[in-house]
């Protein structure tokens, strides 16, 4: 009796299962088609972002160049957006940007490279396991914190040694920016050096080279493309860096090569103009986009160059 009813129950449930299966099959077929389309839409977001950036920058920059001739913008050495008869020369900003980036690379290049040499050639596994996370922590500190560090710690130190330095100067943010970039240069260069095969080092040792000789005459030349790419990416990062220079370098738009003076970078100018009350539609508002466009093109070229260098000159082993 009980087995009979159980059997009947099971036949019913099998029939139900078949029905259910048919229903889910249609649903899942629908899903199989829907999912790729949805995911494709998501993937398009990143493309749209790029187009959004280029479109907004480009359209407003064109508007700016209708009011200010393009030659004045790129050759003018005077930037006075707020005065009675404003002048929009971008050269002081480019100058400030390049000088701060050069200072940063003078700090980050050698230190980052040496750190990479130590990590990949000399450090034991235990030391490396402690040092790498520390470098990652350094890389994760927000830039505004570095700005605070530059303004309230590094600048007073520089001024106590060298009293001519202004309270806001380009030297201190340059140095701190270098410190900020060290982890990036170090870890990218280290990756390049660790991918040099061990057999090459052993070959150098077999020829009687010391570890130092093998590092500088074999490993570094072999990893050069990666190292140069890491330097270029570091410069690009320094060019795009905003908060450190905004805080510690002030806002005077000097066209000078004197590192003790305050200079403004492209990024700091954007912050100043956008943070102040520039009414939409005014020339100064459009100058924001022209400067941003210049900045965007600079960093884009740098990044493309870095990719090109690391692809083109990579030596395969």
């Amino acid at each position: 009796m009980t087995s009979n009813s159980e059997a009947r129950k099971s036949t019913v449930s099998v029939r139900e299962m078949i029905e259910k299966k048919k229903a889910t099959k249609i649903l899942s077929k629908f899903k199989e088609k829907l999912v790729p389309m949805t995911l494709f839409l998501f993937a398009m977001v990143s493309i749209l972002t790029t187009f959004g950036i280029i479109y907004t920058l480009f359209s407003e920059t064109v508007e700016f160049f209708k009011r200010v001739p393009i030659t004045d913008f790129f050759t003018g050495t005077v930037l006075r957006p707020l005065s009675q008869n404003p002048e929009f020369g971008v050269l002081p900003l480019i100058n400030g940007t390049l000088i701060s980036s050069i200072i940063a690379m003078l700090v980050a290049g050698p230190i980052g490279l040496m750190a990479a040499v130590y990590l990949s050639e000399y450090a034991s596994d235990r030391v490396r396991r402690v040092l790498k996370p520390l470098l990652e922590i350094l890389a994760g500190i927000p830039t505004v914190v570095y700005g605070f560090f530059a303004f309230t710690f590094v600048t007073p130190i520089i001024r106590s040694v060298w009293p001519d330095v202004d309270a806001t100067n380009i030297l201190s943010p340059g140095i701190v920016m270098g410190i900020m970039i060290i982890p990036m240069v170090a870890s990218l260069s280290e990756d390049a050096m660790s991918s040099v095969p061990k057999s090459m080092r052993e070959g150098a040792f077999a020829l009687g080279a010391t570890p130092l000789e093998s590092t500088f005459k074999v490993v570094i030349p072999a990893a050069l493309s990666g190292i140069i790419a890491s330097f270029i990416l570091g410069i690009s990062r320094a060019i795009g860096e905003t908060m450190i220079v905004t805080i510690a370098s002030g806002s005077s738009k000097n066209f000078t090569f004197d590192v003790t003076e305050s200079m403004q970078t492209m990024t700091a100018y954007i912050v100043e103009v956008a943070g102040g009350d520039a009414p939409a539609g005014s020339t100064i508002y459009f100058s924001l986009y022209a400067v941003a466009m210049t900045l965007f093109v600079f960093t884009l070229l740098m990044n493309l160059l870095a990719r090109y260098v690391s692809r083109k000159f990579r030596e395969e082993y």
Partner: protein
Amino acid sequence: MAVVIPVTVIIGIGTALYLELYIKRGSIQSIIQTNIANLAGVPSIVYGILGLTVFVRAMDFGNIVLAGGLTLSLLILPIVIVAAQEAVRSVPQHLSEASYGMGATKWQTIRRIILPAALPGILTGSILALSRAIGETAPLTVIGIPALLMAHPGGIFDKFTALPMQIYYWTLDSSLVDEYANLAAATIIVLLLLLFILNSVAVLIRNKFQQRL
């Protein structure tokens, strides 16, 4: 942050899945890939300008949190995509092949096999990207969160402002009021502590699930 997390995680994972599992190898794929790599190198302040133009001005969002959140989402999206891609790629091929062998469809395989296996990697990458968003200041200064603070120059901790913005203003004004430097330092400690906790969680997840596969 309530805006940033869902937007970036959903779009980021979606893009990564599409790029890794659906797209045909070829020119479109390499275009999207190059595009993402270039986006990762765009200075954050340019994203600020984009946010200012599109979200604040063109779409006319009164809600500053939404505009700021969307801008930061776009900023960290490339990082999340790359991390998720790596995670999806590191799922062993034989797992998904076994799933197909059992008669599972592609979406079933992705949802039940690949996503769970890739989840720790995706989580780690997302958390690290999130900590980047938390510390980001430059896009917020451009978008116009300052205007809100101008109304409360005493430094009232407004709901609509962010820790890094407070640090920025207090540091700038520290030459005017002595206590501001101390305030900024205190806020930095709070911010760093927050980041430290987030990063430790990310590292913990990574270590805990690393041996599994």
